[in-house]
């Protein structure tokens, strides 16, 4: 708007087209297609990094400039089509807020004051500090927070350095409860990308899982096909999600009462004998005890808890049974909700087991993978002390590092002091609940180094900031995730980094060399490393560079096709009744506890995804911000009238502990229950270097001064905060 009037003004004034030389000018897209005739287009296959799904993609460069990115048709995740974030991913390349060179802090921690330095200087400081902490406290006192594939080489350097305190928010803040709940039941978890056979399911039950807003590409594609072919869809959500709009049954559940609903469903299925008896006889353990335990949980019992009519509960239970085993109760992904999440996930696992859907077509398939040997490195030193995240095995079923556990250890100094953090590609101020605790932990550190692409909130707290080149400018390790059909995919540079940014492998290798750990990097550069691995897997690196993806031979992925029906549980069966849980003092079959209703007059704060953004990492991407530049707070339309707010009014949210949010617009809507509000996670940035994002919308994390820890695995339930709404003056 301003730009337009300014341009017009200039045109009238000067009689010619004068481009305004502003910041945003850097963000101008490639020139229109009419120039295409004379231009040279180069197409480079790679894979996307805007989220962890890692879809195969092909980037186009026109006349030397990054033009667009599309799905790679060979790729089994994208099937040639990216999600909006992937398509808009090129915006990350011309993001005007990118870090351009290494930075060293010149004032106190937390104040954004920096000096630009060379890589040599910056990495010398990092190596020196790491050596100091190693000699003062031992290498375990240096922790790595990382997220995504890009962190592989950094992890390698840190392991070589001698620490096992390596953690990701994807466990305790994301899919940990689900993975634990399923592992307790099947001895294996739903994996990422999830083993959900949405493609073939005839009945799909979504509990939360807001596919269509949660844009994990393959799932959304398959979900849309399922809708198209008329699959029966049941959505349980306090909010009328996009997925709910596709559903045959929409169950507007009272937040936090899903276990009651799950128990009631199981009750109906057991009492009406709708389950897959043959399957359970063959693979199940402890079914009779389980059947006993769920007996009291009738739909009538669940009704006052969940607000779902008994008849609806019965109808949906029967609907699920009608299509089994092609009935998929989606395991969800972000499952840290109420602190009883591993048990809720276990209930979901059990409902699937009743349907006989694990290992069956239309349920959950068995992942297929290629044998891709790891590069032969020297063995890592054995740390003197065990990891610090879960002292005394407090959370007995945690099978990965608990990020918030490392944070606790950093604050308390127990079981031993943590004095250094390296943070790679995770914005801890946003991804860990209770930012004040994160900041307290940071204040206890001797040294914090952050590797990021933009001056994120966490980078603002660092002593040294290292700028990484973005995914379109670098090689990364191979994509080797097991999937329906095994394959490997390659990320390779499409364009050069615009300034002094470096790829993670270079940073990891150079740092290792400075730490005297050069022996852990026997290869000259990453191409040599990748070529070695690809060759070791029996494939051609040249082909991989050309095609981006190499598919392996199809393998059986269903029991009926010959996939191995093995269960890595104590009983080697599907555990309807879990003796190991019982021995550890937990409920062997999930039980329901009523959620805390919160202070009167307040709304439970719920949150989720917008299809065009990823967490807190896309708000400086000019292309994606153009689609949605701020979040809004969803408020039931009747409540909005009661409170006197109109759609679009700006408000602030105040949580139960008095924390006041940034201003945020009200979305007054018939799409949400009256007892909760909802917002998209990732907005409301405060780091002033994020010029395109700062102050736009509000942050859910900021309002999460409370969280409820899952006693089984240490996950942080985040749906336990309540807010009131104040007009913005």
């Amino acid at each position, binding site marked *: 708007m301003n730009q*337009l009037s300014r341009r*017009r003004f200039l*045109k*009238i004034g000067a009689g010619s087209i004068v481009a305004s030389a502003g910041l945003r000018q850097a963000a101008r897209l490639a020139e229109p297609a009419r120039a295409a005739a004379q231009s040279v287009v180069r197409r480079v296959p790679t894979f996307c990094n805007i989220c962890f799904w890692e879809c195969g993609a092909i980037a186009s460069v026109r006349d030397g400039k990054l033009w667009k990115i599309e799905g790679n048709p060979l790729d089994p995740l994208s099937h040639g089509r990216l999600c909006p974030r992937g398509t808009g991913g090129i915006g990350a390349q011309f993001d005007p807020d990118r870090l351009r060179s290494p930075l060293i802090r010149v004032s106190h921690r937390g104040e954004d004051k920096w000096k630009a330095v060379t890589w040599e200087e910056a990495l010398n400081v990092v190596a020196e500090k790491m050596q100091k902490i190693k000699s003062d406290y031992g290498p375990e006192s240096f922790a790595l927070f990382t997220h995504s594939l890009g962190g592989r080489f950094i992890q390698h350097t840190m392991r070589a350095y001698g620490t096992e305190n390596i953690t990701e928010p994807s466990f305790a803040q994301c899919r940990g409860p689900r993975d634990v709940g399923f592992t307790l039941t099947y001895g294996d978890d739903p994996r990422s990308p999830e083993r959900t056979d949405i493609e073939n399911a005839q009945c799909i039950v979504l509990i939360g899982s807001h596919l269509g807003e949660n844009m994990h590409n393959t799932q959304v594609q398959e979900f849309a096909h399922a809708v198209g072919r008329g699959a029966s869809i049941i959505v349980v959500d306090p909010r009328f999600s996009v997925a709910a709009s596709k559903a045959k049954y929409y169950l507007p559940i009272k937040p936090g009462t899903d276990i009651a609903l799950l128990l009631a469903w199981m009750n109906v299925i057991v009492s009406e004998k709708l389950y897959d008896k043959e399957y359970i006889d063959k693979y199940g353990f402890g079914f009779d005890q389980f059947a006993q335990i769920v007996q009291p949980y009738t739909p009538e019992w669940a009704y006052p808890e969940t607000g779902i009519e008994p008849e609806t509960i019965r109808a949906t239970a029967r609907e699920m049974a009608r299509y089994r085993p092609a009935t998929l109760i989606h395991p969800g992904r972000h499952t840290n909700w109420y602190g009883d999440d591993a048990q809720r996930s276990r209930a979901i696992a059990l409902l699937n087991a009743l349907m006989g859907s694990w290992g069956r077509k239309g349920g959950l398939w068995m992942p297929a993978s290629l044998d891709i040997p790891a590069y032969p490195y020297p063995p890592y030193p054995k740390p003197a002390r065990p990891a610090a995240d879960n002292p005394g095995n407090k959370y007995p079923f945690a099978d990965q590092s608990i990020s918030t556990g490392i944070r606790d250890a950093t604050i308390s100094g127990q079981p031993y002091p943590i004095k250094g953090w390296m943070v790679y590609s995770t914005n801890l101020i946003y991804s860990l609940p209770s930012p004040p605790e994160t900041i307290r932990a940071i204040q206890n550190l001797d040294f914090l180094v952050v590797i990021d692409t933009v001056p994120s909130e966490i980078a603002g707290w660092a002593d040294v900031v290292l700028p990484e080149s973005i995914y379109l400018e670098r090689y990364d390790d191979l994509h080797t995730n097991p999937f329906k059909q095994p394959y490997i995919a390659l990320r390779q540079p499409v364009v050069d980094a615009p300034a002094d940014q470096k790829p993670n492998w270079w940073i990891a290798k150079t740092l290792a060399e400075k730490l005297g750990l050069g022996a852990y990097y026997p290869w000259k550069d990453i191409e040599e490393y990748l070529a070695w691995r690809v060759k070791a897997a029996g494939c051609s690196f040249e082909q991989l560079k050309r095609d981006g993806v190499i598919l392996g031979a199809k393998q059986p992925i269903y029991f009926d096709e010959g996939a191995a029906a093995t269960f890595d549980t104590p009983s080697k069966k599907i555990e309807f009744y879990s003796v190991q849980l019982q021995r550890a003092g937990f409920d062997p079959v999930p039980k329901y506890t009523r959620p805390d209703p919160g202070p009167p007059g307040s709304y439970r704060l719920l949150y989720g995804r917008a299809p065009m953004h990823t967490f807190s990492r896309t708000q400086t991407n000019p292309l994606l911000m153009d*689609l*949605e530049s701020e979040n809004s707070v969803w408020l039931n*339309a009747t409540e909005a009238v009661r409170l006197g707010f109109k*759609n679009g009014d700006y408000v602030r949210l105040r949580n139960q502990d008095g924390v006041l949010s940034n201003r945020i617009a009200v979305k007054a*809507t*018939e799409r949400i229950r009256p007892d909760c509000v909802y917002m998209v996670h990732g907005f409301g940035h405060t780091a002033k270097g994020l010029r395109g994002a700062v102050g736009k919308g509000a942050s859910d994390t900021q309002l999460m001064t409370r969280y409820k820890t899952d006693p089984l695995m240490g996950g942080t339930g985040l749906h336990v905060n309540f807010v009131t709404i104040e007009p913005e003056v």
Partner: protein
Amino acid sequence: MMPLTELTVSRHNPLVDPSLHIWGWQIAVYLFLGGLVAGLMIIAGVRLIAIRPSQREALVCCTIGPIVGLTGLSLGMFTLFLDLSHKLHVWRLYTTFQITSPMSWGSWILLLVYPALVANGLAHLPEAIPALARRFPVIVTWSDFILAREWLVVAIGLSNMLVGIALGIYTGILLGTFGARPLWNSAILGPLFLLSGLSIAAATLHGILIIHTPDDERPTFADFLLSSLTKLIEAHPLDPKVGPVLAGADNSFLTIEAALLILFLIGNTTSTSVHQQAASLLLGGPYTAIFWVFVIGMGIVIPLILQSLELANRIRHTLAPSIFVILGGLALRFVLVYAGQQSHWLEALNR
């Protein structure tokens, strides 16, 4: 079907969202000036054919009118030009004629206006502004050339009338053909803007006549300007023989205009709900106050009353009704240009 409760549109194009505002004062002023010029042309044409040079009123209509018209037209074309967003390409208007496009018609009509007005103005210019004729004697030659040929006088008068009518109707049709904007989408806009243009023109000429009284027999241009200024402040008695013609004409134009406006509103309110919603912009929405106070009250009712009193010799002729009519005509175009852009087939409930 369940009631529509929310409509959310993600588009956010400048000038288009949340509601269209592509045209601002430039177009309102352009339409106003277009109407004025149209009215001036028609009156000039009529008076040229019927003129008796002794009548000052006719001289003003025939000569000052065209001069004001030429100025207004140029100004109007300039404001139109100001509105164009791809200005350097403006010549493209004149490399084509698009038969279905009122704007194309309009741009060609505008080209016809210049010669017609110039010819009309020339015919009696020596009598009307003798000082000018003394300075440029060639004017007398041209005037003589025209007046010596009866057929030419009639042709010039008729062409001014015809082009004027076309221009006046065009300013309304321009908006009236936009089916996409329900408020505008009415065949009445053409005649309405024509009549409004006539009333503005009559009021303008009436005003000029008041300023340009007989004691300025042979003024220089500077004298004329100066005396005009003083007469803006003090009302003057008007030659009783000439003023009433224009005041009376203006009153008839205003009356027909009022009738057309009522028809326009009735048309909208009795049409589809979309049109009703559009009319409610004027009848019970953001533009209601401006519409009733400035367009109807100030622009039509008050001048009608004042001029009726003038005609009945109850009060003296003053500039007031002229100014009111002119401002009312301007307000009419502002209101219609702005409100029309807001009227839409889809009422966005949730923006």
